[in-house]
């Protein structure tokens, strides 16, 4: 029990190493089995998680380089718990639904390594470890896009790698500065995030440090105007790459904001509410419009990811637990729904080898099961109540309303523009007459595919109707983060915004 986090992080990678000696033909079964074990382990973590304790649990902490305060430090709280579970779950589902034939063994091993880095990012409590996993996650994705991608794969994968890497380097400089500041203040080096939480900064430093971290996180999210690597990456990546990229990798950016930016630089965060909210609104509306203009089904989903991540960003900067909890929940929701949508696009691509909506039309009568599942995911994507998509979006908007009603109304247009591009996609592909005769012979979802989709549908509905088991745990930890911010805030404006929140709680 005490080493469960270590096991969770390194088990997939070790199994991946072992995968090199596995027979080619059993690679897929092997991958699914490992991913399933990992998923069960993460569920086991949830079962043993003390939901009343909002701080870090299952902590493993011992020094690696004592002189520089670098340590092996893992821990999980309500914010990271479900991101880990979502990661293991989506890896499992992705592995199950994979249709790649070429070099399947390499793909399985790559995915298992990728899983290590993703779980590692969410569980690391030492900045150096966090950085290590953060950067390492680029490599398997580079490989997935570069080796299994479409015609432009080299351009897309290098763009993805270099773009996010540049941002991360700037973040690294920020991290080193924070560690140095800690050294100046405490006399010892430390990269432990929990130590950093205790460290206060002047407004001037906060601002520049916030920016340094911001660049790293914002490119990953990706925030407007740093988003253009994403359509290329999705456009070229194989289905499994897109699923993992959209479901998990993007969440690393928003997770970074919650884990680092808010509690470490509360005043700068509050100062930056307005610019970030404006960027988020641009993300929401502008990319929704761009999504509407697309002709390629996969690009619609890719741009819709950016739009939904705008909602997540907005919630983080709502500075109250409604907004931030909603935002973390929206990360999960977007992970499940966009993952499912990319898988659905993959299904039709496997059958027709095209993703252009003009090639489809009338699919609903040929593939009713496919249309049904697509329809459910569509409704979750547009945030229909009683699906997973509503809860997060609603909480984010209600939370941000406290900060600015007008900006909330602008951001709320997401429920309109989101419906526009999704319904238009559905109409063009599924409704109307069957325009392409070749499509008449398409087969509906087979049993294998259904097995991957049904759990996703079940979660979309379950967490839409009863989000409480997840939401209450998230909310506890978010409140802790907010109280750290409250204690550290130095500027009167920041105090006002956070205290206005707390005085309400006392009522």
């Amino acid at each position, binding site marked *: 029990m005490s080493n469960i986090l270590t096991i969770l992080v390194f088990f997939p990678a070790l199994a991946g190493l072992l995968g090199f000696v596995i027979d080619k033909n059993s690679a897929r079964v092997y991958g699914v089995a490992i991913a399933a074990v990992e998923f069960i382990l993460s569920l086991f973590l949830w079962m043993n998680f003390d939901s009343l304790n909002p701080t870090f649990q299952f902590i493993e902490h011992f020094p690696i380089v004592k002189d520089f305060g670098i340590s092996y430090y893992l821990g999980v709280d309500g914010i990271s718990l479900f991101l880990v579970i979502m990661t293991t779950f989506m890896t499992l589902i992705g592995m199950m639904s994979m249709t790649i034939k070429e070099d399947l063994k390499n793909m399985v091993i790559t995915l298992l390594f990728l899983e290590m880095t993703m779980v590692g990012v969410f569980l690391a409590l030492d900045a150096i470890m966090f950085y290590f996993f953060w950067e390492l996650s680029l490599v398997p994705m580079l490989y997935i896009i570069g080796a299994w991608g479409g015609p432009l794969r080299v351009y897309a994968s290098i763009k993805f790698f270099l773009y996010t890497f540049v941002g991360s380097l700037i973040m690294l400089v920020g991290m080193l500065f924070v560690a140095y500041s800690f050294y100046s203040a405490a006399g010892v080096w430390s990269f432990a995030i929990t130590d950093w939480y205790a460290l206060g900064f002047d407004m001037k430093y906060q601002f520049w440090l916030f920016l340094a971290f911001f660049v790293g996180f914002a490119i990953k999210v990706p925030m407007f*105007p740093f988003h*253009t690597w994403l359509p290329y990456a999705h456009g070229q990546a194989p289905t499994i790459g897109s699923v993992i990229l959209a479901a998990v990798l993007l969440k690393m950016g928003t997770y970074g904001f919650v884990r680092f930016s808010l509690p470490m630089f509360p005043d700068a965060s509050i100062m930056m509410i307005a610019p970030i909210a404006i960027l988020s609104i641009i993300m929401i509306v502008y990319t929704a*419009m761009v999504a509407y*203009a697309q002709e390629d089904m996969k690009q619609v989903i890719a741009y819709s990811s950016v739009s939904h991540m705008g909602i997540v960003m907005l919630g983080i900067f709502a500075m109250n637990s409604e*907004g931030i909890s909603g935002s973390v929940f929206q990360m999960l929701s977007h992970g499940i729904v966009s993952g499912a949508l990319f898988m659905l696009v993959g299904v039709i691509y496997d059958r027709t080898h095209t993703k252009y909506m003009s090639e489809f039309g009338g699919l609903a009568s040929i593939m009713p099961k496919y249309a049904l599942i697509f329809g459910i995911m569509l409704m979750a994507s547009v945030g229909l109540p009683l699906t997973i998509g509503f809860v997060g979006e609603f909480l984010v908007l209600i939370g941000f309303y406290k900060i600015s009603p007008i900006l909330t109304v602008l951001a709320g247009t997401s429920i*309109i523009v989101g419906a526009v591009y999704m*319904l238009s996609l559905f*109409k063009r592909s599924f409704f109307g007459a069957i325009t392409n005769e070749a499509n008449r012979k398409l087969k509906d979802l087979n049993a294998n595919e259904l097995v991957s989709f049904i759990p996703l549908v079940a979660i979309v509905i379950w967490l839409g109707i009863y989000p409480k088991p997840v939401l209450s745990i998230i*909310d506890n930890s978010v409140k802790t983060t907010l109280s750290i911010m409250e204690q550290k805030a130095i500027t009167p404006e920041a105090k006002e915004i956070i205290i206005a929140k707390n005085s309400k709680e006392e009522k």
Partner: protein
Amino acid sequence: MESLVYIALFAPLLSSLFAGSFAMTPKKQFVGVVSSFLLFISFAASAILGYHLLVTNEPIHVKLMDWIAAGDLNISFGFIVDHVSVTMMFVVTLISTVVHVYSIGYMDHDKSFNRFFSYLSAFVFSMLILVMSDNFAGLFIGWEGVGVCSWLLIGFWYHKADVTRDINPSISPSWAANEAFIMNRIADLGMLVGLFIIYWNVGSLQYDVVFSAIPNMTQAVLTTAAMALFIGAMGKSAQFPLHTWLTDAMEGPTPVSALIHAATMVTAGVFLVIRANPIFALTPEVSYFIAALGTFVAFFAASMALVNRDLKRIIAFSTLSQLGYMFAAAGLGAYWIALFHLGAHAFFKALLFLGAGNVMHAMHDELDIFKMGGLKKAMRGTYLYMGLASLALAGIPPLAGFFSKDAIIETAFNEGSLILWATLVITAGMTAFYSFRQVFLTFHGDERYHEFGIHPHEMYKYVLVAMSPLAILAVIAGFFKDGFNDFIINLLPNYQMSEHTHHLALYLGLIVLAVAVSGILLAYIKYNKRLVRSEKTENGFIYKLLANQYYIPVLYEAVISKPYAELSKLMWKNVDMKIVDATVDAIAKFLYRSGDKSRGMQSGNLSNYLNWMAIGAIALLLVSILSLIAA
């Protein structure tokens, strides 16, 4: 009693799931039968609950489970059966049951028979959530739920291709479905904002908590909340300028038009205003705006119905117009009268639509009333029903519409808003005219359908029998007005006419009646014998304006849809690709090129290196000299 609440609520869900489990199999008659039976159970439970409330006068409040809890927000699935919700439950489940039975006959030959019942029952479930929830968030669940079911049902015949029409840019069931959904979403944003305002000022979304906290709210907050909520109501109830989706929604199967787009869902906006009456009662400006807009829509929609040739669209316009009446009443503070008209209208309008469905069935889906005529011989039962419903709609005593509509017109007079009163009276005349224009053109006069080779036949017997409860209610509902008043004022504020109005009531009623009767007479003179078309009228400006729905759909297409699509394309091709992405690539290329160019320095040639060294030394020297000077 608590279990009855759940039976009423969940029987339709069960029905939907049951029918849904057969959705991908060929038509099975028993699916329709079981669904209808489950709906009847829901109706019976609602009726018992209504009786219980009538006797004990005690609302039933149940809490199922928690839903969303984060921060201080705590929303649970709670349901309340009080006077307003039980009225709605009774109306909704009764009409739903009738429409379910009707659909067994109407959808007889449809290969997606089972799927239809699944959607239809899902709609009823959502509608019940909408009316029974004890909080605004629950209302919003139902609100969005009925929206989705409406989307599914309007687009039920999704396989039909887009057809370009002169009035609408391009219309097909799937197009109309998307239009309805998106237009409603615009209004839903307003509704959400209303919820946010209430939450941050009260800390809860539960009706009783919110209403009891009203005294602590400032007028400004109340007014914005009322405005935001009403924007939500405008979408669902298709009030101007968000009205175009309702007539296009007629692309759906006719039972759907009867249930969703006439009797129940479109009245959700009126229901919201009635439900939140403690807020609206304290915001007179907003309320007056509601009444004025309602009156305007009543007139505006009726005017478009005057010249329309499409049987279903005429009825849809009349629905729009009657919704305007309801808003007029609610806006003037006569909440119970609005609710009464909502119920009465639901009965006769559903009857009218189902009758239209019979006609469509007989005419092989032909909807142009100019191609009908003389159908009364072939369709006696339907003729009777539609005649009755039209009389009720026209407000002829002693049918239901007379009592409810007259009360609204009287309210307008009582409030001293003579403009509203006069408009509503004139509209009543127009209503009578277009209703009977449609009846005469369909059932009386020369049998024009022969030209088109159609052999009309009456609907199945059991379908006609199933429609009879609506017919009976359309006749007698008016007599329950006083009883309903006594019942409903336990929850809603009573609305009393002043002494002055009371004295004049008889004359006022006679004026309305005279106007209505002359409307019918005019229609009789013009259309009873045969259809005489005049080129001159039809090419006239006003006729064209009305027939093209004031060119509003064309305008929306030109001003909103097209520019949005073009702007989106511009954003993608020009902004995203040529500016944002090109900048990123330009930076990368600059770095690459500068590296590529400067690579030439490392030529391996010693004399080159010496040159560079000399240049470097000079540069350093210059820098240090300059910095010395600067210092």
